[in-house]
């Protein structure tokens, strides 16, 4: 819808506004705006450097190292990379089906991961914008503001502070990960064809103690995000409101599936573009294009072509696309969410938060189911098979569909790796969103911190990896310069890493 803002005509006559860095993740992300003499936005671009370095330096390493090596891509969702790589490596050792114990341990681990990541993103990073307002006083617009109860962040019927619930939700997810992999971050668990240990009864029982409370808080999180979204006309109908295709994994019966399924893509009306595609054939349906102004590729759906084939992944895509969620409370929440779409997908970017909390609730319910399943306490852990030269692992990471594709040689060393991380799939959508926001809120106006934050909020809705790295405490360091058509600086505003503003 805002393609016209990707590249402006007569670029040399426009003022250039640069938000640089938006953050630092393995490099550098920035937003550039080109504005004409009347401050009308003519071009808006989000530039990100992604984790491509890994694809190069894992070449020449033995395949069984991959799940542990590549999880270092990220400190927020290492488990996603660990499991996506492990799924690819299963194929390299010729294993198509894990034992029940290994499969359930991996799923439990993944639920813990998605739960902690979603909690972190909503409560720690995004809730201040939504609770206090996008251009509220920046002094309070952070997790400390939420924790200190400014102005009131307790939930109805509960004295518990929302920020504290978020911290405890995240901690629980991290404890699930620690029990299974030995460490909260960057442990070991999945090995070729299986898993390295089952849960002990003590570990299981310790996790069961709090799970009902976690489910209750998850439910409260759904209610909170639903309320924030539905009660704000601007958020619901206008802010970063773009329409798009969606893509994600789906279970064979159409259920939401985070760990293992087939690919489904739907158009803006919810009609299937493709469905139940084996993800090992992803190159038949997806392609990536390079643009000269950013290091991040733009994936697109082949049948729709480069211009129209972009899509969104992540919680919004998954909740929109699935036929049902296989746990009861989350399914109830999904039905309410689906009503908002009125038979079509919900498109508003800020609905991501609502969808994210529905998934968090699903994870909490899923964790309880698995903890009560005796398979996680023991049984066969590893299956063996015949070596293959290629493996493709796909998983629904917290931020969306994550592809790990490896080829090895006769010596068992990686010769080729291709990773499509979730944030890459949302590249075009984030660009569209900031263009919409730039046009609606910045067009024709003088820059302020609050206006800058509109851009951040639009990017943040997607929970891109760039927000986790430096956005702790809501203090993404930003620098915006407004240059006139001659390249002279007319205005400059910097937000420092301590949150203070300076000229």
């Amino acid at each position: 819808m805002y393609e016209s803002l990707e590249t402006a005509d007569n670029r040399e006559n426009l003022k250039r506004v640069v938000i640089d860095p938006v953050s630092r993740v393995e490099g550098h992300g920035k937003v550039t705006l080109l504005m004409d003499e009347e401050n009308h936005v003519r071009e808006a671009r989000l530039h990100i450097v992604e984790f491509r370095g890994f694809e190069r330096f894992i070449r020449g390493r033995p395949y069984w190292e991959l799940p542990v090596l590549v999880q270092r891509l990220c400190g927020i969702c290492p488990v996603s990379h660990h499991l996506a790589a492990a799924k690819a490596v299963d194929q390299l050792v010729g294993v198509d089906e894990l034992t029940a114990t290994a499969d359930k341990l991996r799923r439990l681990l993944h639920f813990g991961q998605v739960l902690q990541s979603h909690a972190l993103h909503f409560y720690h990073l995004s809730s201040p914008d939504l609770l206090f307002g996008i251009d509220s006083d920046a002094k309070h617009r952070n997790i400390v503001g939420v924790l200190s109860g400014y102005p009131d962040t307790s939930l109805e019927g509960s004295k518990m502070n929302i920020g504290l619930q978020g911290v405890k939700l995240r901690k629980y997810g991290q404890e699930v990960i620690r029990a299974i992999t030995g460490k909260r971050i960057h442990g070991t668990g999945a090995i070729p064809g299986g898993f390295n240990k089952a849960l002990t009864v003590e570990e299981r029982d310790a996790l069961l103690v709090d799970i009902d409370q976690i489910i209750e808080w998850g439910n409260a999180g759904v209610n909170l995000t639903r309320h924030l979204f539905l009660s704000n006309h601007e958020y619901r109908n206008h802010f970063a409101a773009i329409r798009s295709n969606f893509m994600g994994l789906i279970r064979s019966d159409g259920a939401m599936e985070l760990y293992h399924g087939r690919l489904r893509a739907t158009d803006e009306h919810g009609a299937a573009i493709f469905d139940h595609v084996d993800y090992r054939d992803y190159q038949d349906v997806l392609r990536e294009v390079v643009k000269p102004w950013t290091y991040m590729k733009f994936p697109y759906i082949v049948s729709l072509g480069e211009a129209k084939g972009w899509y969104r992944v992540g919680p919004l895509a998954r909740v929109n696309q699935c036929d049902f969620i296989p746990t009861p409370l989350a399914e109830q929440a999904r039905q309410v969410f689906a009503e908002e779409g009125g038979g079509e997908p919900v498109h508003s970017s800020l609905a991501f938060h609502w969808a994210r909390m529905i998934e968090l609730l699903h994870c909490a319910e899923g964790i309880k189911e698995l903890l009560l399943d005796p398979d996680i306490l023991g049984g066969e852990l590893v299956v063996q098979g015949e070596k293959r030269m290629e493996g493709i692992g796909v998983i629904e990471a917290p931020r969306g569909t994550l592809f790990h594709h490896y080829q090895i040689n006769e010596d068992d060393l990686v010769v080729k790796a291709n990773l499509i991380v979730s944030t890459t799939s949302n590249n075009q959508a984030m660009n569209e969103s900031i263009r919409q926001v730039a046009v609606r809120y910045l067009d024709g106006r003088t820059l302020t911190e609050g206006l800058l934050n509109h851009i951040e909020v639009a990017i943040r809705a997607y929970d891109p990896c760039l927000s986790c790295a430096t956005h702790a405490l809501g203090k993404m360091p930003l620098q915006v310069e407004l240059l006139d058509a001659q390249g002279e600086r007319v205005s400059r505003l910097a937000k420092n890493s301590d949150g203070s503003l300076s000229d």
Partner: protein
Amino acid sequence: MKTITIDGRSIPFEEGQTIMDAALAADVYIPHLCHNPEFTPHGSCKLCNVKVNGRTCSACTMLAAEGQDVINNSKELNDARRAITQMLFVEGNHICPGCEKSGNCQLQALGYHFNMLDAHFPYFYPRREVDASHPDVLLDRDRCILCELCVRASRDVDHKNVFDIAGRGINAHLIVNSATGKLADSVLEVDDKAVEVCPVGAILVKHHGYEVPIGQRLYDHHDIAEISLMTEGGGSDE
């Protein structure tokens, strides 16, 4: 019985024992990396440096003798040992976070033992060759510390002479005794002592790794000093 003193404690020894032998037999830990009691002492890593009557010696090669007053556990020696450990880290490419030997690695364990908090010296980032040609064994020279334990094991136990060190000084590197220089063309087998003995992650059995969960690895809950005395000390069965 003849005795030496180590850090003021009287330690008995038998003729022909090194200071290291006598110390281990008496359950006194002297840090070591290239030394393994099963093999002829080598004296190259210098972590077992001790002061014997004021002079620095390698405990693993210095024969115990009546009248020796040995200082082992002193700040000066441990500072030097930490520096040596740091040099070993920067000379190779020791990326513990991704290494399957992590938690079971003697070099890493010594880093913890000496409270090594950084590398101190600039990293060399050497380019070293991985030899993955063998179907069952991987040789990752990035992690080789030139302790020659594999050289000794292959020569003295396996009687195969598969490994050796070539080059001098900073160019020293582990080579494979085969026509092509590749492991695949050597007579090495996966069950060889030379494969098992590597104290770091340089020689590895292929297709396996990370199978021991975190928390159950050798050094997860025990310092290398404890493990050494348990497995190599006088009270051990081995």
